[in-house]
């Protein structure tokens, strides 16, 4: 890549020689750091709101589960919500990861070209549906269907702890919310996985197949190991999306201020983002708004951590390939 080095040196020499260029460079560089400023601004301003909350409530704010501002002293904690966000994301991933892996395997290795491009476009279309529309659809169309599936799960697999339901109410469950999250995760994970699997060198695939590998052995020993990093990163990006999703979950999940540990088909669950939206409209005063801002701070930290990790993994596998 000596060519590029030479050109870069030339560009830099040209850049410093002209006054207009110096102004241009500075303006562009300043704009490039807006993303950093916004990220830092979110951390600082929401963090500043979290400080007084912590001074008053201590670590109980993140380790206890309650939302009662009328008691004295007030008892407020978002552990159930933080845990609920993770539980919903796990349910979403359990549905979405196999589906998107199979989808991308189908698109890359099995489907005829025409069907593959139709499927690719459909998955992109799925990503384009706004979450508020998915929520509307889930509330009126998916809910009755999902209630039926869940009652079947309860009838036939009720002996598994996850599928217990004592209330007989199958609406507003983490399962339905997780299902909606899965519909949002599938396009993200599929597009990354498809790209990564599509980059498997055809020589390797042809060599494996001509040596007598079946589709499964080829996937197991060639394609999947080759794209492993990208697949993991794609799943993490989906996870980040699932943790931050608000409105669609708000429509289908019955928010309860208890920790629903693992009863995925029992009505009631938690989610930080949904807590913020549902309490914001009826907040009793500036202090409750401050509590919600503090909750938002933890949501931000959680999603930022997951996303940074995901991007590191994806970019690292990209680098290895070059």
């Amino acid at each position: 890549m000596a060519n590029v080095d030479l050109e870069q040196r030339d560009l830099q020499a040209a850049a410093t020689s002209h006054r207009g260029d110096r102004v241009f460079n500075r303006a562009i560089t300043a704009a490039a750091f807006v993303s950093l400023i916004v990220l830092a601004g979110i951390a600082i301003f929401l963090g500043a709101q979290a400080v007084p909350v912590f001074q008053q409530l201590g670590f109980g704010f993140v380790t206890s589960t309650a939302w009662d501002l009328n008691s004295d002293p007030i008892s407020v904690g978002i552990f159930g919500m933080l845990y609920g966000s993770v539980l919903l994301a796990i349910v979403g991933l359990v549905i979405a990861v196999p589906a998107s892996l199979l989808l991308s395997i189908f698109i890359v290795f099995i489907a005829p070209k025409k069907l593959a491009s139709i499927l690719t476009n459909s998955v992109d279309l799925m990503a384009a549906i706004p979450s508020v529309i998915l929520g509307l659809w889930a509330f009126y169309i998916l809910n009755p269907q999902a209630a039926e599936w869940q009652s079947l799960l309860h009838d036939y697999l009720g002996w598994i702890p996850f599928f217990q339901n004592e209330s007989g109410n199958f609406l507003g469950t983490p399962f339905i919310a997780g299902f909606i999250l899965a519909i949002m995760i599938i396009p993200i994970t599929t597009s990354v996985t498809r790209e990564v699997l599509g980059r498997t060198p055809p020589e390797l695939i042809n060599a494996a197949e001509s040596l007598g590998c079946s589709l499964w052995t080829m996937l197991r020993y060639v394609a999947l190991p080759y794209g492993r990093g990208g697949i993991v990163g794609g799943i993490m990006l989906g996870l980040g999306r699932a943790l931050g999703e608000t409105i669609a979950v708000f429509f289908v999940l019955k928010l309860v201020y208890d920790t629903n540990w693992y009863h995925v088909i029992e009505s009631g669950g938690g989610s930080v983002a949904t807590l913020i939206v549902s309490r914001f409209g009826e907040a009793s005063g500036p202090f409750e708004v401050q509590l919600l801002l503090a909750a938002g701070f933890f949501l931000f930290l959680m999603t930022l951590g997951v996303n940074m990790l995901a991007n590191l993994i994806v970019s690292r596998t990209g680098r290895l390939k070059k």
Partner: protein
Amino acid sequence: MTTTFDPASLPSLEQQTKTRPWRQRTTKFDVSVAIAVAVPMMIVIGMFLFSDIPGALVLVIYLPLQMFASGCAAVATKGKRGILDSVIIVNAVGASIFTFVIIFSVLWSLVSKGLKALSIPFLTQNSTYISPSTPLEYGGMAHAALGTLIVVAISALIAVPIGIATAIYITEVRGKAVPYVRFFVQSMSGVPSVVAGLFILTTLILTGAINTSAFAGGLAYAVLMLPTVARTAEEVLRLVPDDLRTGALALGSTRARTVLQVVLPAAKTGIVTAIILGIARVIGETAPLLMTSGKNDATVANPFSDPISTLPVSIFENVAQPYPDAVTRAWGAALILMVLVAILFTVARLLGRNKIK
């Protein structure tokens, strides 16, 4: 007589890799596959029509039945090692059908329920004097559609120049901080929409700097739009051949002129695609607008003074109302929103296609 080896008589290497003799299918294979698909299908249709097993359960039975049948076909044609292949193929087809069903269901319900709400007043009136129980003939979503357009326009005015400048920094200026800038842009694309709303709320609205208004909503949208524009524009600028840059510089053009008069015009359609994808990313976001632009039944044109209704917020307000007409309004607003998104994506696709040619 000597035979000479003539390389030209061989099929080219490319053709050789395309033939892949180990993939040729026999009639036996085709027949087994046809039987393996037809038999479970007939059993399931029979169960559906002639037994009282619930429909959902029949679907649950179908998948393992199909896997079993395909497994048998695999053993018949390829031996034991074909079993896992058949399982993968059946499930992959199943996942594709699942995707199609979901998309079809969403679009069909949007069209069938949304069309009931569409009428001339629905598209031209606002919701002043309209309560959830008012019949459908009165009131409409024009104010919300206008609000969405205003908020999106403001966010585009803010996010597009910054996003493109970020992309120029990465591909043209190539400063020392490029890896860090890319990392921050990628991290920013993961900021949850509700957090973007809280950010604008706590920094600008609660401090009294600006009102709950279209401008505040536009700022929150800009936070979400910036990374999408920056990442797409970066990919587009990378496609501009380096010859153009070096050519312009060799002719004595300055850096700024090279970028503004050569590189950006060369990537014009791609830049438009980046803008459109950025708009499409934010146009349906609801949570940030609940906190920053609020709602208003009247038509508002001033982006700085008053709260303003938008399509996503109008959907949010009308869902789960006990009045069927309010719910129909929500479907109608959702249909308008989806049509806007579809137009944006179609235009982006068409532009993208031209770029490749």
